[in-house]
């Protein structure tokens, strides 16, 4: 065990996967670029060669399709998009040619590809360079979606994603790249489909996604000093969702906040809320509170950006709202 950053954990997962399984290769725009993928692909070309760590032309659809085809041929590719914003260009490949393939052919050809969609926002990058539309992918049958919020999970989920026999969308967030914690040096899996209770509590359940897990933890600290006990749950996998973990927590606390850095309408936050409402009918003490992005594109200017992206204070407010009167 060593203290590692999230970026290092992702990098190490790549490295160990490449080293331990010759079916694994990495392909995407900017493996060798200083801008594109943070430090998460650092050193991979040097160690494994440009045959297995492949930089590409700007052709999101073509490159994603190539990874899909390689997966059909039994490889375990990791194809990445330096920004989720550019993945829209590969949407047809991801849905029609990947998520649906196994079903469409009656289970005869599976597609063990890992698609890495990096969230890269902030610093006035504006609407086309800031998005994190998880829900669009959760919506699609046949695709698993993971969203690690800690270095430990970042490593373990990438390993599990690559080892899974199905297409997995792995969404890592550059805002978390400097986050540090103890991460095992050896290769390990965090199982897909299992959430994590990050902090136990009794008054309110906060289900938080991606960078909002950290913010939820901070909010919970502050709330603790006000004697409000918050249980923080990180689902880690958005699909298949560990709904039981969430439902059991809500049964205990009776209150739910969903904190999800994506747009609200048909979002993952509504997915959780709808499931929880239906499964805990009449148990909730208050309506679910939502902490999401506004239903607006992402602005550039810092004054607007600050207002746009939720943080601990929004989660704090949402929890406080329950105890308003």
């Amino acid at each position, binding site marked *: 065990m060593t203290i590692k950053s999230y970026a290092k954990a992702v990098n190490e997962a790549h490295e160990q996967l490449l080293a331990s399984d010759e079916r694994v290769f990495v392909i995407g725009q900017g493996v060798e670029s200083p801008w594109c993928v943070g430090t998460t692909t650092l050193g991979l070309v040097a160690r494994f060669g440009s045959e297995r760590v492949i930089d590409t032309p700007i*052709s999101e659809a073509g490159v994603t399709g*190539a990874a899909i085809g390689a997966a059909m*041929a039994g490889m375990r590719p990791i194809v990445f998009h330096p920004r989720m914003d550019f993945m829209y260009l590969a949407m*047809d490949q991801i849905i029609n*040619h990947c998520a649906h393939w196994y079903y*469409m052919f*009656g289970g005869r050809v599976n597609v063990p590809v890992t698609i890495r969609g990096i969230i890269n926002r902030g610093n006035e990058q504006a609407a086309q360079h800031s998005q994190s539309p998880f829900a669009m992918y959760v919506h699609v049958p046949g695709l698993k979606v993971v969203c690690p919020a800690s270095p430990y999970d970042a490593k373990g989920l990438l390993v599990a994603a690559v080892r899974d026999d199905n297409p997995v969308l792995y969404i890592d967030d550059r805002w978390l790249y400097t986050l540090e914690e103890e991460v095992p040096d050896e290769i390990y899996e965090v199982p897909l489909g299992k959430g994590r209770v990050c902090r136990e509590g009794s008054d309110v359940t906060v289900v938080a996604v991606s960078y909002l897990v950290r913010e939820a933890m901070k909010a919970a600290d502050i709330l603790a000093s006000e004697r409000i006990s918050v249980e923080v749950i990180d689902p880690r996998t958005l699909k298949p969702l560990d709904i039981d973990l969430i439902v059991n927590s809500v049964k205990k606390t009776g209150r739910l906040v969903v904190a999800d850095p994506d747009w609200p309408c048909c979002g993952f936050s509504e997915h959780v809320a709808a499931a929880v409402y239906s499964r805990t009918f009449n148990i909730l003490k208050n309506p679910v509170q939502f902490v999401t992005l506004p239903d607006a594109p992402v602005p550039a200017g810092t004054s607007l950006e600050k207002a746009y992206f939720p943080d601990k204070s929004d989660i704090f407010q949402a929890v406080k709202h329950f105890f308003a009167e």
Partner: protein
Amino acid sequence: MNNCLCPPPPEFRINRIDDSKLKWLLLTMMRIREFEERVAELVIEKKIITPCHLYTGQEAVASGVCHALRKDDYLFGTHRSHGHYIAKGGDLKAAMAEMFGRATGCSKGRGGSMHLVAPEVGILGTSSIVAGSLPIAVGTALAESIRGTGRVTAVFHGDGVPEEGIWHESANLAALKRLPVIFICENNLYCTHMALDKRRVHDNLHRVAKEHGLESVVVDGNNVPDVYYAARDAVNRAREGYGPSFIECRTYRWRGHVGPNYDVDLGLRNQDELDAWVARCPIKHFAGFLVSIGILSKNDVEEMQRGVSFEIEEAVSFAVSSPFPDPADLTRYVFKGGASNDD
């Protein structure tokens, strides 16, 4: 109807192909033809529901190309892939059962006519999204290039495909990484209801491919040895690591875009043009040629035809006597592994 769109009958030149191979080419074309024409009847009889894009008239392309491929080479196709599936050696019964939406279909009734699969002979699927399987084919080629196996990928596509951007992305990637993939463009002059000149300024798809860095040739798609020779060269290049090729096969689909009609009634094509291409029938001419050079007798040809008819009839019997998929299995095969969807 100009000469370019409708050339004279194919002239055959053969060269170091042994007799059994020549017979295979004819037999494969006949098998495809019989399959397609039988499917057409079954569609008219409303026994087959799934939308069928028939390959009648184009048989020389699939047959010529697949003859150059090994069993373990990959093949990807389109909405119009019955012929590709058959030529590559896919099981006839499983294909016919798929037409009928049966559990015994190659895709277990989930795919229908447009989604045929036969991993045992390298067919990992066909996509009904125009140009959709191009990058995937580049991907299997990439996989094999990484593994260094020499397995080649052939991907069939129509003349409409280069209108889709992803075709260009795929071609560029294949050329750049020198991948063992062959793009076979079946230029049948139409894309649904539109002739090529309504979709592009120039009739020069092979030149575009060339500019992207693919080795590029044009052949008479109704001439099965010519197709075979072009494919063989491309396969050799690919197998030896010299990179991807593009083969434009000029041909014609007799039936209309989808289903058994001819699209002449709809005013989409004219009867003269269709007649001229029917006169260029790749099977009739090639059979005649084999008879003329004494490799087959007329009798042999008739016997082959009977054999093929029998095979297809057997496939139909198999299909219609097969069970439908169980609705209780509706959500099976969403994911591999895991509780309910395991397989």
